[in-house]
């Protein structure tokens, strides 16, 4: 509203007085309202129900499956426990590093027992960074209840073992009885068979042929054995100590079998040669050669190609043994198979790490 002259002057006075009164009325009304301030350390500040604050763990429910530990994208959960009989967990640690934690709540969803939650505690003020590593366990080690449960479980186990033993014994006794009965029956049957078979004797085969045939089948079996033992062993990744053991042992054993087979072959060969069965001997040799050749490939992998088969086999085995003893591969093999031995080494390394930082004697 536009005013001028004396009216403007009076209007201004009216406006000033009126607006001041209105303003003072507002402040006076607010004077008697309750302050909205939360006296923080004393008052509990309400937070949303979905607030993601400091975690809390329902340790009773937790089965130490480590699902949360695995799910954590920043690896801030550290779980250490020992599993006792009766699925009792002896707790050492269930800590969360709030230096790292980003409150993504990904640890809570995979929990099969729904026992880890994000709470409403938001005060993360500490004097030291180390104080932000918070152990969530409400107890450590074993409680009386746990001891009781372990005891019960062990007793149960013992009882079951005894039961099993009794069962086994009974079964064995039964078997023995059955076997005896069967034997008796078999004897009876045999006796009956003998009686019936004799008159039904087939036309006689040449004994030479028969022996050669049986020998050949024997050889084939041996060769197959060698193959199965020598072939898959080198191609198998050296997964752990035992596997490397096998590898180191295999070439020699394969060699032995390979060595053996010609030796074994020798006498039947002579016999077969006598019977002019060269055709049969040739595949034998062909079969024996790869059997011997495969270990060679294995030795090449061990690092010394182009050396005499036997020597290579031995040194290879020796080296492997050394490797195993010292824990680290020394004569680092070159070439294609390097990856394999490296794998073994890396595996060993991780194993060592695991030992250094015992994550729990879970299994």
């Amino acid at each position, binding site marked *: 509203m536009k005013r001028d002259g004396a009216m403007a002057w009076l209007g201004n006075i009216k406006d000033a007085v009126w607006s001041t009164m209105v303003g003072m009325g507002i402040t006076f009304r607010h004077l008697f*309202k309750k302050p909205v*301030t939360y006296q923080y350390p004393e008052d509990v500040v309400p937070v949303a129900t979905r607030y993601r604050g400091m975690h809390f763990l329902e340790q009773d429910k937790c089965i130490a499956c480590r699902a949360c530990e695995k799910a954590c994208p920043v690896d801030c959960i550290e779980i250490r426990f020992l599993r006792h009989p009766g699925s009792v967990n002896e707790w050492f640690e269930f800590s969360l590093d709030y230096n790292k934690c980003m409150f993504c709540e990904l640890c809570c969803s995979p929990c099969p027992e729904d026992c880890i939650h994000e709470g409403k505690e938001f005060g993360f003020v500490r004097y030291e960074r180390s104080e932000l590593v918070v152990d969530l366990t409400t107890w450590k080690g074993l409680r009386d209840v746990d001891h009781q449960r372990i005891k019960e479980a062990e007793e149960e186990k013992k009882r079951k073992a005894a039961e099993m033993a009794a069962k086994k014994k009974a079964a064995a006794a039964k078997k023995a009885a059955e076997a005896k009965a069967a034997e008796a029956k078999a004897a009876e049957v045999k006796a009956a068979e003998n009686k019936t078979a004799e008159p039904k004797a087939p036309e006689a085969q040449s004994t030479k042929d028969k022996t050669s045939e049986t020998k050949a089948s024997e050889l084939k079996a041996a060769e197959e054995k060698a193959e199965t033992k020598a072939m898959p062993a080198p191609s198998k990744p050296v997964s752990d100590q035992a596997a490397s053991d096998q590898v180191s042992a295999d070439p020699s054993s394969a060699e032995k079998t390979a060595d053996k087979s010609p030796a074994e072959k020798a006498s039947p060969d002579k016999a077969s040669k006598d019977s002019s069965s060269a055709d049969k001997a040739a595949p034998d040799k062909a079969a024996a050669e790869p059997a011997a050749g495969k270990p060679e490939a294995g030795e090449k992998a061990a690092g010394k190609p182009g050396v005499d088969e036997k020597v290579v086999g031995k040194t290879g085995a020796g080296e492997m043994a050394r490797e195993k003893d010292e824990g680290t591969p020394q004569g680092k093999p070159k070439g294609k198979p390097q990856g394999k031995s490296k794998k073994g080494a890396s595996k060993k390394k991780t194993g060592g790490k695991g030992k250094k930082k015992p994550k729990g004697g879970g299994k």
Partner: protein
Amino acid sequence: MSIASVWTVLAVQASGAGAGEGAGTGATGILKGLAAYGFWGYLVAALLGFAILFGIASALPILFTWAERRVSGRMQQRWGPNRVGPFGLIQALADGIKLMFKEDIIPAKADKLLFMVAPGIVLAGMLSAFALIPLSDSAVVVDTPLGVYLITALLSLEVIGVIMAGWASNNKWSLFGAMREAAQMVSYEIPFGLCILLAVVSYGTLSLREMSLAQAGGFLNVGNWLIFHNPLFALPAALIFFIAALANTKRAPFDLPEAESELVSGFHTEYSGLRFSFFFLEEYASMFVISVILIAMYLGGWNLPFVPGSAMTGSFGAELLAVLSMLFKAFVLVFVMIWIRWTLPRIRIDQVMSLCYKYLTPIAFVCLIGTCWWELST
């Protein structure tokens, strides 16, 4: 140094009180008796009066700062101070102790002498004004025939201290604050003086004590209060005096010399420690002084409704009642000052000029003329 200046002023006033006794208008009590013993009597009276005044003048700001912070907090729906003592009552005391132990920094380029003297002058002006205000018929340290005239002069002394401080600080903000104070002072002093003149015209005396005494009696014992005795002219004049008093105490909406959002802290930007606390003390103590002046002139002094004026003077109990009544009224006015501070925003310096020259001064002048006519006609 500041303390010494206060002593000097008070000693002068104590001798004034002694002189006043001879004229038959003097104050009562111990001070009057002491003044009869010559120079040493004056000195003891001065020291005693100073001790009492300084105690009151320091204790009241403690209460007022607490009230200010508490009220402002509640108006903004906060709690305000509530940690030190019950309801945070001794918060201001804690602040005072803190300020005493703080380093007293004097800027290198400052005018050292003026810088050091300025807070003393401000405090001296306020404290000597304290000596002149009547809390009851006898509870007045110095009752001179000059009365309000002397009080306005002493309150203006404070402005000189402020300008001194702003100039001596050698700081642009401080100087701005000081200049604003000067400009503001020449604006508000005119309606302020006219409103005092109105009261003087009504009562025919300059003494605040006599003004208060004159307001006893009438309808329900409030009929003789100036604002009820002469409502048409005295009521607006009381309002104008109150507005001018806000400007005088440099409180919002007239806190331009300080203006912490514009001028850092205005004229006391460079002050710290005890010297800063003097400015602080002065602001709150002068709130009380101005309130008491307003009450003595317009709001019936220590007189209460339904209580006959004779019951407020004479005996010790009556005097105590009068003091309590005066304190109660003063506290209400101080509360209103706080209330206004947390309601209104700061106005510009040109708006201060416009308000004082174009609105307050003409109205006050009309009220003065009207009161003259009123007093002549009745």
